[in-house]
């Protein structure tokens, strides 16, 4: 119980673990945490090792950097290499490999690629350099998409004509549906994402209970939050209930953030389909700019190669993202693929399952195995 002593309330954690162990009994339960932030918490705090063997956590597709397919990175690099373009990106995307390298390498070859903290910083750059086209590489789930939307509304208000967005925003519900449809994986319930749910609320997850009969508990990012959510999932199963519950009510409201949802609806529409790394094409799973914003849309303004590129053969990010294999079961994990020289996206982002496991979980697991748990 080395880890538990480090939790905020060790006594509460022990009580939860005891109840989880008792309720799980001899059955085996598999719960998926959808959000990369949860994956990080689970490895960072050794949660897998304080849980009984009967409760298994499976990591889902909720790391927005991890799910961007290689072809889109290639498209981003092609735009970045266009004359006159200043290409701006969050730091997380800079090291994601495309088929001919990443954005940092494109920068080394002469492209004007710059890191920004916020889409508003990209817009400021556009205002300050009116003779250049400033492109913002927009990625993220509904947590970051409203920020891009507000920035675009501001750009329109200011009459800025040299600001453009390469939109790769994705939505949280379709990949959950895709996983539930997948024959590879049998799950008993979900830990619902935290920050995304502050925007979308809990209502969009109703299909998980209504159509697929799986419970879902939206949860926070402390170890105690995750343990409590697992306890709530098991209690539902024990009592024969199947509900959407909110463990993170101190931040997440059932209705989400109506203002954020309104700006999303004003600026974006759903794409007919979008390719996800590992999950393939998922219909209506990503956002594009509405026609009223076409002037700001990179895909309307530049010739995008749009070539679909298969992942490197050795890379098993797809299976990791679907929860079919664990990070350490990938053939190149920790050998050819490390955070310093990532082959796949899951090793790039600190919220990717592979990077989180490489940084924290690996050692925990070795210790746990050595000590015979």
């Amino acid at each position, binding site marked *: 119980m080395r880890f538990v002593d480090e939790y905020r309330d060790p006594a509460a954690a022990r009580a939860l673990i005891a109840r989880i162990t008792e309720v799980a009994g001899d059955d085996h339960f598999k719960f998926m945490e959808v959000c990369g932030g949860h994956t990080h918490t689970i490895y960072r705090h050794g949660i897998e090792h304080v849980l009984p063997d009967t409760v298994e956590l499976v990591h889902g597709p909720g790391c927005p950097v991890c799910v961007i397919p290689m072809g889109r990175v290639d498209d981003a690099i092609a735009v970045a290499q266009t004359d006159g373009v200043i290409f701006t990106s969050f730091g997380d995307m800079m090291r994601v490999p495309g088929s001919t390298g990443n954005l940092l390498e494109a920068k080394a070859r002469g492209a004007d690629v710059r*890191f920004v903290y*916020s*889409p*508003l910083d990209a817009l400021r750059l*556009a205002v300050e350099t009116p003779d250049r086209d400033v492109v913002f590489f927009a990625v*993220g789930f509904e*947590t970051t998409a409203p*920020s891009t939307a507000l920035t675009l509304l501001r750009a329109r208000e200011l009459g800025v004509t040299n600001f453009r967005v390469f939109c790769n925003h994705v939505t949280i519900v379709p990949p959950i549906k895709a996983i539930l449809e997948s024959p590879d994986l049998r799950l008993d319930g979900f830990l619902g994402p935290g920050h995304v749910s502050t925007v979308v609320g809990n209502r969009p997850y109703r299909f998980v209970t209504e159509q697929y009969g799986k419970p879902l508990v939206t949860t926070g990012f402390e170890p105690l939050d995750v343990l409590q959510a697992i306890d709530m999932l098991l209690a539902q199963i024990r009592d024969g209930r199947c509900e959407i519950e909110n463990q993170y009510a101190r931040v997440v409201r059932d209705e989400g953030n109506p*203002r954020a949802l309104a700006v999303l609806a004003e600026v974006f529409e759903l794409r007919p389909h979008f390719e996800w790394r590992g999950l393939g094409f998922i219909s209506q799973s990503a956002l594009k700019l509405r026609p009223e914003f076409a002037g700001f849309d990179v895909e309307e303004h530049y010739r995008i190669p749009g070539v679909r590129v298969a992942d490197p053969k050795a890379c098993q990010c797809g299976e990791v993202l679907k929860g079919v294999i664990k990070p350490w079961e990938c053939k190149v994990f920790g050998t050819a693929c490390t955070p310093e020289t990532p082959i796949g996206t899951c090793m790039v982002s600190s*919220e990717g399952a592979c990077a989180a496991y490489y940084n924290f979980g690996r050692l925990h697991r070795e210790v746990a195995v050595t000590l015979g748990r």
Partner: protein
Amino acid sequence: MCLGIPGQVIELLEVHEHLARIDVSGVGRVVNIGLLEDEHLAPGDWVLIHVGFAMSKIDEDEARRALEGLQLLGRELDDELQALATSRITAEEGGTR
């Protein structure tokens, strides 16, 4: 990018709507608060910030817990705070109506 960082509202900036100066780990940062329009933020309130935008209003206890959790991240929190330090959101482009 996915980290939500807690900050405390110092003052609402009147130059343009929807901007506030927010104390993040002891440094005042300009942040867009347009998505929390309905919360009627006031100095002293706590918010979670993502990529230059306040995304949710939280209470002081939650802010403290979130910050403690982030501090465990070490380098990643440092990276995020450094990234935030490069940000220069100004009234000219950063406000929204």
